């Protein structure tokens, strides 16, 4: 007889042998397979009523009756009926229909007949709404308008949904996303595309969905650092901004990239504030992330600069252009990522213009500044409701919009200039602005936070060093998880230079070098100009509302490509993305709807 212990050892040995015998890609897929099973099992234990935990329960045959009962409840409540529901329902149905009792087919059909599925007004809303409608019209074809909530026939609904999805994919791959690089809303783009990939019967739509999944994951991968989505974001929530590892994207990173090295739903440090389990759509999907994208997401052996062009969300008022460009700059290292948007109002309410996010065992592994701006006019740029009541309305949903202490904001009075590991941020706050101060987030778990007579504030977090130079006087306000750095001058700014143990040796050496650095900002209140010479001898000169000069030459944002860096290259308007890693090349050509892999 073989003992249980011996059996376990044998199983481990066999698994280890199989694992080590696999080539890289095979090993990676095996590891993904393990993670997706863990994820499905974890989600199947959730008591919460949710389409994606229902999928997990039915897939794993765990809490089966509870799942059936929950699905029944979700189809009965006619008060529910928005875009989240529209595609979530179809995802749950299409993933589990073979397992459902017969009565459910009619129940679910009835949902799309009786209740209005509200389309919403944001990019992620429409992706969810039209994905749901596309799959519903495909599932119940050849029905007349009387059988649909919107009075349109199956054929009409299918054509409209396809038309918009085609339009959105083209817009995204030629001008960039509007709700780009969002640690929260990434969820709302990836999940519908996974469902579309799994269930679209049209091979062209299926292929487009697959390509867009590659595209969005690649977009994430180049700004991913050990589970964190670093740098500037179009939209993010304060809790995730000050603790990046808790963002929804961490679950996707764990599932597809294998980082962070802990399960993001169970660890206290990283437990997401979001109860959502949409990433189950990945665990249940037949989509497989190309190995090249996982490698890009995890290989941080060589620092790199990556730039992007995105677009501003649809402007309906107070603009001369519907979707002006957004310019984004990211510098990635093995220890930190420093990234920034060029500044101004690029997204209402939830913009996160810049940050440094560093590798740390501690939570709150980030540092940034902002101007807490709000106005009805900002909201009226993007929402059709009455301008003067919008701030109050937004406060009802987002709670912090008018708060002077908020940690997310798009300000028309903030501009950035980044070159590699150095960032200049300038503010010129209008007298009529509601709040005249700027704030900085300094997490308490920093190893060190030192103020010096040189005016530099030096911080150390593991192997990451941060030098922070305020242009104006400031104060510190102690809060629960951080020190709030606050400066009350309307004409303001900071210089940030990053270093690491690798580049600078000991922290003392980093500080010694920075103490010699010259920040020229004489007459700043009049000139709004700062000049800084970096540790590598490059001269950055930045005038608020004026030029960004690097070694005397103006930085031309118009030359920015859609993606440009060592791993991703795409020209604005091209519809073609080249993904490269070492000697591997993957080309996504959205014009031809083709994927080409080369070595």
């Amino acid at each position: 007889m073989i003992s249980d212990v011996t059996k376990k050892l044998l199983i481990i040995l066999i698994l280890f042998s199989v694992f080590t015998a696999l080539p890289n890609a095979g090993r990676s897929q095996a590891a993904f397979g393990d993670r997706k099973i863990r994820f499905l099992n974890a989600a199947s234990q959730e008591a919460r009523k949710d389409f994606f935990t229902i999928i997990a329960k039915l897939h794993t045959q765990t809490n089966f009756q509870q799942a059936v009962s929950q699905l029944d409840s979700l189809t009965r409540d006619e008060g529910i009926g928005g875009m989240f529901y529209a595609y979530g329902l179809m995802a749950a149905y299409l993933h589990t229909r073979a397992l459902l009792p017969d009565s459910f087919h009619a129940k679910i059909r009835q949902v799309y007949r009786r209740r209005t599925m509200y389309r919403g007004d944001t990019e992620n809303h429409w992706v969810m709404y039209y994905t749901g409608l596309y799959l519903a019209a495909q599932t119940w074809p050849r029905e007349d308008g009387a059988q649909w909530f919107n009075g349109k026939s199956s054929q009409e609904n299918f054509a409209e949904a396809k038309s918009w999805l085609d339009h959105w994919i083209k817009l995204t791959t030629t001008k960039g996303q509007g709700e780009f690089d969002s640690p929260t809303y990434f969820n709302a783009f990836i999940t519908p595309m996974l469902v579309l990939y799994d269930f679209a019967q049209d091979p062209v739509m299926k292929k487009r969905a697959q390509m867009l999944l590659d595209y969005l994951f690649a977009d994430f991968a180049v700004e991913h650092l050990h589970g964190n989505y670093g740098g500037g974001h179009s939209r993010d929530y304060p809790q995730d901004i000050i603790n990046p590892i808790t963002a929804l994207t961490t679950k996707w990173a764990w599932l597809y990239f294998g980082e962070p090295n802990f399960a993001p739903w169970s660890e206290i440090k990283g437990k997401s504030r979001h109860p959502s389990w949409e990433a189950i759509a990945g665990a249940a999907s037949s989509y497989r992330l190309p190995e090249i994208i996982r490698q890009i997401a995890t290989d941080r052996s060589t620092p790199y600069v990556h730039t992007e062009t995105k677009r501003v969300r649809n402007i309906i008022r107070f603009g001369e252009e519907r979707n002006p460009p957004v310019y984004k700059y990211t510098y990635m290292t093995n220890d930190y990522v420093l990234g920034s948007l060029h500044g101004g109002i690029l997204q209402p309410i939830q913009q996160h213009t810049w940050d440094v996010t560093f590798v740390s065992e501690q939570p709150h592994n980030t540092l940034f500044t902002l101007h807490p701006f709000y106005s009805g006019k900002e909201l009226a740029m993007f929402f059709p409701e009455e301008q003067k009541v919008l701030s109050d309305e937004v406060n009802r949903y987002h709670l912090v919009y008018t708060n002077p202490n908020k940690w997310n904001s798009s300000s028309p009075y903030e501009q950035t200039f980044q070159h590699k590991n150095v960032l200049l941020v300038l503010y010129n706050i209008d007298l009529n602005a509601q709040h005249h101060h700027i704030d900085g987030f300094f997490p308490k778990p920093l190893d060190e936070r030192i103020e010096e007579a040189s005016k530099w504030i030096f911080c150390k977090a593991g192997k990451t060093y941060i030098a922070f130079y305020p242009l104006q006087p400031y104060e510190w306000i102690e809060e629960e998880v951080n020190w709030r750095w606050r400066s009350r001058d309307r004409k303001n700014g900071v210089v940030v230079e990053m270093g690491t143990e690798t580049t600078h040796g000991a922290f003392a050496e980093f500080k010694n070098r920075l103490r010699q650095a010259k920040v020229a900002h004489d007459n700043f209140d009049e000139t709004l100009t700062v000049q800084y010479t970096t540790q590598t001898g490059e001269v950055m000169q930045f005038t608020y509302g004026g030029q960004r000069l690097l070694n005397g030459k103006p930085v031309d944002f118009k030359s920015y490509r859609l993606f440009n860096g060592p791993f991703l290259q795409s020209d604005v308007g091209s519809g073609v993305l080249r993904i490269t890693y070492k000697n591997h090349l993957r080309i996504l050509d959205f014009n031809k709807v083709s994927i080409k892999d080369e070595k």
Partner: protein
Amino acid sequence: MIRLSTRGLILIFGLFATASLAQEVSKKIYAAVLFNNSKSNVTGADRYVGVFARAKGKTEWKNFSNTNLFAFGLNFTQHGATPRYYVAGGNGLHRSADGGKTWKILTGWETLEVLSVALDPVDAKIIYIATPFGIFKSRDDGKNWAEKMRGCKSWYTDEIIIDARDRHTLYAAVDDDLYRSRDGGENWSPMQTGAPGIRTVIQLAAHSNVILAGTEDHGVRVTIDDGKNWSAGKGISATAIYAIHAASDGKAIYAGGYKTGVWRSHDLGQSWLQIWTAPEIEAIYSLWVDPANADHLFVGTNGKGIYESTDGGMTWKPAGLEGAHVKQISMFP
């Protein structure tokens, strides 16, 4: 759940639960359009939005449209025996051709939200809509839509109406000015009201040369000579005016907006007197004056439902739909 938008309900006063609106027309139906309701604020899951109706003499409101129909505007036409109802909403332009039993969305994704709808009084196939991205026209009963913005500087358009004298003349509340088209929307010219941010427009039925525009920051702008000259309505707050409505004889005109209460004019909108401060109401989104009794008024609010007055606006009482944001109130004759 994340919600950024606060969108559309349509209310129709006093509808019997099982009766169609068509059957109720002869009994005088008050209709109200709701785009949000503080009783339910989950994205796309607002069971209290839609078209609601209440019959004259009744107090109970009933949802008349599909559930979750986020709505901004309502219009009505009757060609032949069957009335048609149009709802401008978050999902597009909805139409019911069977007295409210079933609805069809006539627009696609290109028009985004629809904020207002105007119907040609002669040719039932001609429909105009106002949207955040401009004005669109259909000549074929909503099957196809064409953008009609030639001459407009901005694209955001809150409202569109048709001139009472000439069906080819239109007025559009565009963000930078009030615009007029004399050729069915093909070409537009700014009317130079002297104030940007036009939120609403009316033409007095009894005095067709009188046009009033509610603005974002400059109260009411008025012309009494068909647009040749414009002036500011005297006395009224220089703030946002979202709603203007007039008695059928034009002798009394009422207006309301952001923290304004209700104002009244007896001289074609040239001077105004506040008749209700309404301190508990942040904004008045809609106003309606009974054409048969100018002392009978309704106002629709943002989040406080509907208020009613039967003494020309001197006293008011809540009239239902508490919590609702009421974008329009109408009555079908």
